[in-house]
């Protein structure tokens, strides 16, 4: 029995990478007095370590709840959420979250925002600043270190949030509609940026979005969820070549996949 679990973990952690996520019959029901709402009903799935998986589905289908469960912010009513073979019970040090809303701290400079996660973990000032500087440059905000979030555009603030998450060197990056509040053009731009960053860091990413094209463009695999109480209705492998640029969006293969997913959602 034990050996079986172990061998299972090995296949989802290729090359000894960390950050494999397994959802096993996950159900989440919220109770409010006598009312009970099942946000997620029986979702099972595996995210291989180092892969980019997007979750799409109609609004209110429990996509964000699923992310909260993997983040350890909530515990499933039944079923199990496992990271690298261990059950998730509280926020883990190897997971980092990026939210839809602006979560930058407005009284801190860009550099201190990016260093904030490390600061919370007790990393010394010199070291965390060095790491933060590296991440600021990675997300393309070099030169803005001393700016305050107020002086930045929405897209730049989301890049600050992404850099803050990356600075903690997580094996799993959980992104909850991080570009949801951005306009279309900025979305594409920051999406291309994220692809570039992901291709150079190869972290496990679980990315929630309602934008099917964005999901196809970014991911190795797209999970399609059904209406509430939601289940996983399909896992679609995206075989578009990498490195990917925005031009891939005009190819037939891309458009075909997007259409295919839209059909499932309809």
């Amino acid at each position, binding site marked *: 029995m034990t050996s079986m679990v172990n061998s299972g973990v090995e296949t989802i952690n290729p090359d000894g990478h960390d950050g494999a996520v397994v959802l096993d019959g996950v159900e989440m029901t919220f109770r409010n007095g006598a009312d009970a709402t099942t946000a997620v009903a029986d979702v099972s799935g595996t995210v291989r370590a180092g892969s980019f998986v997007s979750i799409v589905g109609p609004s209110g289908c429990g996509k964000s709840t699923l992310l909260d469960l993997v*983040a350890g*912010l909530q515990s499933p009513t039944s079923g199990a959420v496992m990271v690298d073979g261990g059950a998730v019970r*509280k*926020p883990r*040090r190897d*997971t*980092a*979250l990026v*939210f839809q*809303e*602006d*979560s930058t*701290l*407005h*009284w801190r400079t860009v550099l201190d925002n990016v260093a*904030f*996660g490390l*600061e*919370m*973990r007790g990393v010394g000032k010199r070291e965390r600043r060095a790491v933060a500087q590296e991440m600021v440059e990675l997300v393309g905000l070099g030169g803005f270190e*001393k*700016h*305050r979030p*107020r*002086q930045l555009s929405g897209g730049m603030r989301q890049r600050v949030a992404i850099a803050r998450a990356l600075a903690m060197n997580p094996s799993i990056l959980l992104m909850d509609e991080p570009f949801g509040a951005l306009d279309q053009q900025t979305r594409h731009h920051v999406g291309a940026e994220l692809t570039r960053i992901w291709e150079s860091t190869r972290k496990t990413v679980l990315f929630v979005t309602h934008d099917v094209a964005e999901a196809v463009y970014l991911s190795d695999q797209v999970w399609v969820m059904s209406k509430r109480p939601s289940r996983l209705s399909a896992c679609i492998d995206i075989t578009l070549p990498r490195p990917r640029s925005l031009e891939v969006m005009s190819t037939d293969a891309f458009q075909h996949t997007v259409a295919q997913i839209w059909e499932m959602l309809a």
Partner: protein
Amino acid sequence: MTTASSDASSTLPSGRAKKAPRVDGIRFRAGAILLRILLLVAVVAAWQIAVSTGAVNSLTLPTPWQALKAMSQVRDGEFWKDLSNTGLVVLAAFGIGGAAGLAAGIAFWRLPALGDAVEPFLVTLYATPTLVFYPVLIVLLGLNLWPLILIASVMVFMPIALNTMIGLRSLSPVLPRLARSLGSPGPVAFRKILLPGALPIVISGARVAFLYATMGTIAMEMVVASAGLGYRIGYDYSNFRTQEMYGLVLVVAVLATGLNWILTRVEKSMRRDLA
């Protein structure tokens, strides 16, 4: 010289470069300042005319020049004793009322049911001239500084408690989630994430509180006290020392304006950093 300075300005971060003054803005400000000076001159002139035509008895109201000359009393030791007395009450009240207000505001935020329950009382108390309780407190606590400090503390308490609660309530719900996802323990998260986020609103409350406490203290000192700026104004009034009284009123007006200016500056600079 010119090239050196333009080089320096081009290396400034763009955030600062944006602050180049606008010509329209300058013209508008100059106009406002001119109007202000004209208003001031008009008031002083009306004052002077009222006294010199005999419309107002010069025993009741000195001329502006006499009042201005009477401001020289700031050189007396007496004035500094009064100022330090009033200052002591205001600072003590700010310390006591501020700490209590901050603690209460945090409690009202943590326990939303309690906050909702007390909010109408707080607002009512805010609008009540609490200094009417001063005589009662003198009877209870005796004629010393404590009745003054206590009432001024209540004046400080209310805006700070209210604004702390409102400031914390208005924070984006993403901030507590961020704190939890980073695994920060409650008190650390509060100090590093929530309190700084609420601080701009708390600080505006603190400014209002400081001015309330100062005005309230001077008003109460006019009723009963043995020292203080308000006491001195009241004393001059009842002893027909009208020149000295108006001189001191002018001094208080200058002090209040200066205090407000400093506090507004502090609030603005903190808001710039925090908001």
